[in-house]
């Protein structure tokens, strides 16, 4: 039997089988859509198996940031690396999570560029599944990075000042906030011509946004105008909330403000992102 004949057998069988069942689903159910989301996030995560360098992106990079900040800047900023770590670890967790949202955008942009999205869009699957699958996979990576940073932080001398509930709440808050920010990055991924442009956006927007907050340094030494900006910067709000939940300090106000910011990001960017996603051909 030749190769072509094998194709024949498969297709003929399936065709006759299907011809009897003429009833076609009019739409995708929510449960089915969620299952497709899981399949597509599996696809994103299994890539790590084939491309170990991707593991570097979300494991080595945050650890490197943590070590550099603690031992290079720590003494100068906080008096000693250990003292600085208590201040900076929550900020580094927030910074890493924000930077990781870039992966969502570059991943989507790559799929668009390579035509893989056309394949997905031609399948009878939920329209949101390619987006939600990518976002879910990236949230899993985020959770891993948070655990990694906390674990290594503790080895380096970080002490949780609250308790297990505080740690869980902090992790949950970071995930909720980065999920909200992801919508903005999904929009960027849809509008950017190619994945390289997404990276440029990261450096032009995310980098300064993060460094003009109180994620890494107390803002008291900044000029007045910058202090005013830093106070309003959502990255500061996120960092304060995580700091409160992990170490000490006010919790209620920064957490509520963080959630408001997250809601605002979602309300503004989720519809825009979904619209851009629908339009992108």
């Amino acid at each position: 039997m030749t190769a072509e004949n094998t194709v024949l057998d498969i297709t003929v069988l399936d065709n006759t089988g299907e011809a009897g069942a003429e009833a076609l689903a009019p739409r995708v159910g929510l449960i089915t859509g969620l299952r497709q989301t899981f399949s597509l996030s599996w696809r994103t995560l299994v890539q790590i198996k084939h491309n170990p360098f991707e593991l570097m992106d979300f494991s080595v990079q945050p650890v490197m940031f943590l070590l550099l900040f603690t031992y290079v800047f720590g003494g100068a900023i906080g008096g000693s690396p250990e003292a600085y770590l208590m201040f900076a670890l929550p900020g580094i967790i927030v910074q890493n999570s924000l930077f990781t949202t870039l992966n969502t955008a570059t991943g989507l942009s790559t799929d668009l560029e390579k035509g893989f999205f056309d394949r997905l869009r031609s399948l009878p699957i939920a329209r949101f599944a390619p987006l939600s699958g990518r976002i879910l996979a990236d949230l899993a990576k985020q959770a891993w990075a948070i655990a990694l940073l906390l674990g290594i932080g503790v080895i380096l001398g970080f002490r949780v000042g609250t308790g297990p509930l505080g740690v869980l709440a902090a992790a949950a808050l970071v995930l909720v906030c980065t999920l909200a920010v992801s919508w903005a990055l999904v929009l960027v991924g849809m509008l950017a011509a190619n994945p390289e442009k997404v990276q440029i956006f990261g450096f032009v927007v995310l980098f300064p946004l993060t460094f003009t907050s109180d994620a890494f340094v107390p803002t008291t030494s900044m000029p007045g105008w910058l202090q005013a900006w830093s106070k309003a910067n959502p990255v500061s709000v996120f960092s304060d909330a995580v700091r409160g939940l992990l170490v000490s300090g006010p919790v209620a106000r920064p957490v509520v403000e963080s959630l408001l910011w997250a809601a605002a990001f979602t309300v503004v960017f989720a519809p825009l992102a979904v619209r851009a996603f629908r339009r992108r051909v």
Partner: protein
Amino acid sequence: MTYSIVTEGLVKRFGQTRALDGIDLAVRTGSVFGLLGPNGAGKTTAVRILATLVRPDGGHATVCGHDVVRHAHQVRQLTGLTGQYASVDETLTGTENLALIGRLTGQSRPAARSRARDLLAAFRLTDAADRAVKTYSGGMRRRLDLAASLVSRPRVLYLDEPTTGLDPRSRNEMWEVVRGLTATGVTVLLTTQYLEEADLLAGEIAVIDHGTVIATGTPEELKARTGALTLAVRPARPADLPAVRAVAAGFTRTEPEVRGTTVTVPVAGEDVMPAMVRRLDDAGIAVAELTLRGSTLDEVFLSLTGRRTEEESAEQELEGSAA
């Protein structure tokens, strides 16, 4: 007679350009239909509308009776798409790519695995099944892409320029595979820039240009109308060119063309060859070269529209300026 794909007055604009300007097609169930045209003729746009990836601006289209806009989800359950660019995940293996699509289209994990295995075997990719797709050759990728579009057991299959950019050997392999599919009852809509490919695979062809259908028919009908063969005569003495031209004009309704020292003319069949030899001999013209070959898409265009495809004329301008 049932039709799997029907389009009426399909229009699609991109800014100022009308990519499709009123396309009417009717594709018989179980047939291979060739959409033949040069780059930018609107072939891919038509396929993307029929695959529900693009919404038309005017007219309508149905696939197995389901409207591509209003019942897009139903259409997606019936169709498979193999694009011009292999749209598989390069970082996944062949098996993973196919199994993923199986899972997405509702197959159980074991069913998706075994379907993937069968398809990989059928497309001679078993040896590469567990290698990342980025290590595949161009031909292997196209075969995997075609396999991917068959995972969900489509009744209608779109093949958008399945052999563009492939080397001749991979192209032949692809043709074999497509011919194998045609016997299965799957309706295939094939777009191509190659007359030879459409002739070889399709039972019916629509030639499109600037978003409109300019000719339809079986390959035989089309060849009879346009001259599927091209006869080229180069006289030994360039001074004989006008005489050769006059002789050639007797074989066709199309004006013979003089390029350099060669006269070309589209002809319907091989039987003109001996007659041509006789007439040239009668006229006392010494011939340096006399060839009969398959027409290119460009030559079909010339006889259908009286002008060349734009790509070709741009090339000629370049050649002209170089000389």
